[in-house]
């Protein structure tokens, strides 16, 4: 069974541009999560999508947005890129995010570099 996939692997942008990151969850998983791992800061929760709806949002500005498509894949958009947006962006999926004991499965991440 295929795991969570993310594209692209690496992305280089300049300040002020927009970045789009994509994630395909494990087949059958309806919840998708996005995390940012900046240097020295651990995993910071960004967004949670479930059944096509945004269910929860972390403490990030509105220029971080996303969506979940009918096939449960997801897209993260970062507008007006700033240097401090440079980080590893991880996507995870789970069967039923409404259950606290559900298990999240992570993709390998997209490394975003903002110059």
């Amino acid at each position: 069974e295929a795991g969570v996939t993310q594209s692209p692997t690496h992305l280089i942008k300049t300040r002020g541009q927009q970045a789009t990151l994509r994630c395909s969850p494990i087949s059958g998983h309806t919840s998708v999560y996005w995390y940012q791992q900046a240097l020295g800061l651990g995993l910071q929760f960004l967004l949670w999508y479930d059944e096509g709806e945004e269910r929860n949002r972390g403490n990030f500005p509105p220029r971080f947005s996303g969506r979940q498509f009918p096939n449960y894949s997801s897209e993260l958009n970062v507008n007006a890129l700033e240097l401090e947006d440079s980080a590893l962006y991880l996507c995870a999926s789970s069967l039923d995010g409404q259950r606290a004991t559900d298990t999240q499965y992570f993709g390998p991440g997209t490394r975003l570099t903002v110059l």
Partner: protein
Amino acid sequence: DQQVKQNSPSLSVQEGRISILNCDYTNSMFDYFLWYKKYPAEGPTFLISISSIKDKNEDGRFTVFLNKSAKHLSLHIVPSQPGDSAVYFCAATSYGGSQGNLIFGKGTKLSVKP
């Protein structure tokens, strides 16, 4: 304000010995805790979890201990193997919450020397 803290950024252990990774939390509402392991260039993978109704959970070489009064949990790896070298993240949520409220620590990098 960090609700989940892993105060040791790194830990080095000899192969065959015990590795003990620590995690502290501040939110008394947390009642479900997880450990994830992350290798370079890979996403984190789930390792083991514990509910607040237990104080210990074992899975092979991995044991997680929970001390609710101290708001402290630890992951024990016995015996440690070179393949265990990775970054370990502690995470917490509450049963009244969901996976969308999972809070991670900053991680501890474990190095197991042959």
